């Protein structure tokens, strides 16, 4: 089939689909109309508050646009994009920092949420409801307050974390002790700890999923002699893969947008040794602190493209490891 034939076939199919759409019965058309009416608040909201600003921000990326002097904005074409991709080493350095942190934080965060959910789902756990409430409670503490509290908890001199470690015989207190927020080797671990404070939502979602796994499967596995670990690996994990997948996508997107913790603790200085110079911190500094909104918009769009690519990749990979009951393949 040559190119023109292929094109003609595609056009024909498109026309056919369009005709099919108009070949609705009166009742179906009425139903579609009401569907659209009920969807319209969201559609209008999306168009006004998401889609339009996105288009405008893309236009910004083509301008040399300083926040405090919007009247002096100047069209520069792809200059900002060239600067970002070819001339600005910070782009790649901050991306590297972001991915490095994600590689450490993502597995710890996801595994912790899952295992805690398994624990909270266990029938052997005393006071399950109280425990569930307690594990979820930190999520309700405003993030900024939690970060400030953690910065004091991790203070090398008077923070209780070091005081407790010191009790075990490990030297932790003081300027030559464990400087969680100052040591480039500890900083990602410290940030991950702070992140674990807020995994209540992920625990909750995992928990709901665990409760949906049919108990008969465990009973059958028990009869067949499968132990707890085997049941976890061969029944629980496969059955909750849709939720693991959901948490994975959300976590990846969240980590790509990682901003609040380094900003509150260091105001985006990158301290220590540039290890907290995350991509979104760099974006914020360019767009708002340095007021280079044109360049900031370019950085934002690049992150959007990266995020989209990773999400597409995850969805593609999902067909190999995510189990959807009742799905035909």
């Amino acid at each position, binding site marked *: 089939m040559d190119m023109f034939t292929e094109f003609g076939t595609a056009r024909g199919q498109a026309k056919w689909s369009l005709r099919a759409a108009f070949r609705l019965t009166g009742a179906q058309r009425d139903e579609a109309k009401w569907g659209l009416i009920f969807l319209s608040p969201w559609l209008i909201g999306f168009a006004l508050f998401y889609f339009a600003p996105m288009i405008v921000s893309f236009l910004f990326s083509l301008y040399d646009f300083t*926040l*405090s*002097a*919007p009247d*002096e904005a100047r069209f520069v074409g792809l200059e900002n994009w060239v600067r970002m991709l070819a001339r600005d080493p910070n782009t790649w350095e901050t991306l590297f920092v972001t991915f490095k942190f994600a590689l450490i934080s993502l597995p710890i965060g996801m595994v912790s949420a899952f295992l805690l959910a398994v624990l909270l789902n266990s029938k052997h756990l005393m006071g399950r409801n109280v425990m569930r409430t307690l594990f979820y409670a930190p999520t309700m503490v405003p993030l900024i307050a939690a970060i*400030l509290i953690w*910065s*004091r908890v991790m*203070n*090398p*001199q*008077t*923070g209780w974390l070091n005081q407790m470690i010191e009790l075990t015989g490990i030297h932790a*207190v*003081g*300027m*030559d002790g464990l*400087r969680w927020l*100052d040591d480039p080797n500890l900083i990602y671990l410290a940030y991950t700890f702070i992140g674990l404070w807020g995994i209540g939502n992920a625990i909750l979602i995992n928990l709901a999923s665990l409760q949906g796994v049919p108990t008969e499967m465990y009973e059958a596995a028990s009869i067949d002699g499968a132990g707890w670990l085997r049941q976890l690996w061969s029944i629980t994990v496969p059955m909750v893969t849709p939720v693991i997948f959901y948490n994975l996508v959300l976590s990846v997107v969240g980590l790509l947008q990682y901003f609040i913790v380094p900003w509150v603790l*260091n*105001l*985006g*200085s*990158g*301290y*220590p040794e540039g290890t907290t110079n995350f991509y979104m911190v760099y974006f914020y*500094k360019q767009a*708002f*602190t*340095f*007021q280079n*909104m044109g360049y900031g918009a370019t950085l934002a769009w690049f992150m959007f493209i990266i995020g989209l690519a990773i999400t597409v990749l995850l969805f593609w990979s999902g067909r190999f490891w995510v189990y959807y009951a009742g799905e035909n393949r």
Partner: protein
Amino acid sequence: MRNTKLITLLVLLLLVMAVSMAQAQDRVRVRWYVGLGAGTDAPLVAAQEEIVADFNASQDGIELVLEIVDNAQAYDVLSTQIAAGNAPDIVGPMGIRGRASFPGAWLDLTSLIEANSYDLSDFDPALIDFYRVEGEGQLGIPFAVFPSFLMYNVDLFDEGGIPYPPSSYGESYTDWEGNEHEWNIDTLSEVAKLLSVDINGNDASMDEFDTSNIVQFGYGTQFSDVRGRATLFGSANFIDADGSAVIPDVWREAEHWYHAAMWEDYFMPNAVYSGSEIMGGGSANWFDTGNMGMITIHLWFLGWGTANLDASWNFGPVPSHNGVTTAKLHADTFGIMNSSENPDAAFEVLTYLLGERAADLTSLYGGMPARLSLQDDFIERTVAVQSEAYPGVDWANLNWDVVLAGLQHPDNPNHEEGMPSFLEASARYNEYGQLVDNNADEDIDAALDSLRDDLQAIFDAAM
């Protein structure tokens, strides 16, 4: 019948609301943005709201609206408002830093001053020129100055049996053995070491001093950035007359001294101690903890800055360096944004704030009025205001003379002076500060050289 009454009542209510809204709309709306300088602390909010209410009640042509944004976010919020075409009309009080952070955003007041025949004779002409920026015009009318000074905790001096700092500029320091010393950086360092105490009661001049368990420090340049603290050694800037990035020798010397004070002599809190509970757990208000012997600070600190301090304190002179004393100065003004749609109304508000209410506002913010006619009874007014707000302090018997005398030693160039790409340059030197304050082994010269190179790159990009 009941329904008819209800409907009539509702219609009347709507009419009343419509009329009041129409009346409000008749007024020109002027937005006053507070956040780039003083004015965001909780006790000041109500007082500023009162001034706004007074202004709105005094006339029916303008509706003044107050917007207070916390200082940490105020710069970003204002940037965003400007970009969104939603900028306020008046911004203030703000210092040189606030003004320099938004180059090109301020209205040249020259024509408004002329059109309104605004009387500037009550100001020092040099101070008026201070707000005249080449290429941008008269960007402000003087409002208040905030001299800096030494503050010391009397109780800690008494506890250690250490004589107080001198009470005036030029006076020597008499030590515990009766020896006289020039009140300079070296003397300050020695006194600060005696005031720095570990958990066992040893001070920083002793060999037994336990640097990992310090409970009290001797000195700190509080609430200041690298340029501000280095100015203790002399006035300078990171940019020379040719526009090149430089590290002035006197500032290099200062930075070595600060690093040694934090990491070798331990009479000043380094970043570890600064963030600890001993120094207020990251609040950065060391003096208020009662564990700090001396600080250098500005007039705007008074009142709220010692709200929790359960100790007596007093003012002293800033120490000299190489025979020269530099008491850095903050000078505040109010500006009108050039995007204001109602510059005439904004100017009317501005003249109200800087004229009729200047005495109230300067007392409120703790500043010394720029108006010559208000300077004579400035101390009395401040004492009265502070005594009412913070009755625990014997405000009348503090050494106010030394505070005023600090005005004779201002920094020129000012430590908040502008630089190309001001916000980016500021962020870079703040990174330097964070680096050296956190690391005992940092090579100060190398860090400063790196800072200079990076600043040069920032300046070049801005040209």
